[in-house]
């Protein structure tokens, strides 16, 4: 695992509560609002299960800690999106909270329903970008959520040991996190 330069993290005292909200203007219509919200709720829950951080959805976009939006092309932060595939999304390091997804992608929450060869799993990308919002940079571990690339129709939502060790180095462990169960789970996966 790796951190951003200077190892930034949300500095409020633990346990931390962060609010998130969706931009009312920068949206996509290929998925329903509830599908999008459910995917993000699951993505936040992956991280919340391992660190003492709680994520609450807010309707107040202006005051939310994490601001989520779907944007096309140049959207004003100096990192324009590039259309289908290529760059899928980006997020800012703590404590900025900006989370931008490329509106041009074929976002999917269910590959059985979305048959496109270019379909990108929204929950997987959301889980990865939340890692950035919390302070993790890209890892070299290919199986980890924080590996920089994600292929179309690939689903990668379960945090691996590398992700967990990294994020717990920043925030400590969630008191309810069962380290041993997670390790055994990872082992059984790697053993096929």
């Amino acid at each position, binding site marked *: 695992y790796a951190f951003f330069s200077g190892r930034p993290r949300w500095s409020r005292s633990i346990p931390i509560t962060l609010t998130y909200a969706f931009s009312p203007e920068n949206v996509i219509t290929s998925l329903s609002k509830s599908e999008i919200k459910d995917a993000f709720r699951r993505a936040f829950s992956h991280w919340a299960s391992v660190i003492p951080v709680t994520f609450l959805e807010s309707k107040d976009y202006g005051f939310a800690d994490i601001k989520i939006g779907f944007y096309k092309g140049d959207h004003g932060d100096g990192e324009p999106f590039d259309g289908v595939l290529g760059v899928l999304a980006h997020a800012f390091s703590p404590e900025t909270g900006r989370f931008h997804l490329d509106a041009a992608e074929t976002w999917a929450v269910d590959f059985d329903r979305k048959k496109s060869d270019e379909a990108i799993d929204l929950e997987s990308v959301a889980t990865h970008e939340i890692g*950035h919002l919390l302070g993790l*940079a890209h890892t070299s571990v290919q199986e980890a959520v924080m590996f920089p*690339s994600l292929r179309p129709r690939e689903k990668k939502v379960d945090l691996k040991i590398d992700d967990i060790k990294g994020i717990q180095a920043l925030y400590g462990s969630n008191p309810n996190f069962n380290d041993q169960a997670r390790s055994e789970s990872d082992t059984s996966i790697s053993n096929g």
Partner: protein
Amino acid sequence: RTSPFFSSKPTNPTNNHKIRSYTWHEFGKFVDATRGNNINGISELKKYFHRFGYLKMDNLNFTDLFDDHLEHALIKYQEKLGLSVTGKLDENTVSQIISPRCGVSDSAPKFMHAKRH
């Protein structure tokens, strides 16, 4: 956007679907390119490596020469992403390069702090 590059060597079951990267599909033609050659369009690959933190250059007028800088960036990229470190544009490396990815730089990035625009 007329001739997307198709990855020919899927590395896991989720890769059975052919990968099209409209943004970087041109990089497919660089497979097996070697240092010392002048290759039309390889400056775009240098821009890619610069963008994602592998090529540090003050002069951003990238040339189409496969030079030492590009080879060094390639090695750093292969090391970082757990690929075989060959310093060459082998198929696995090019396939990884054209894969869709996160826009955040790979090298302890700073740019994703807030900027004013």
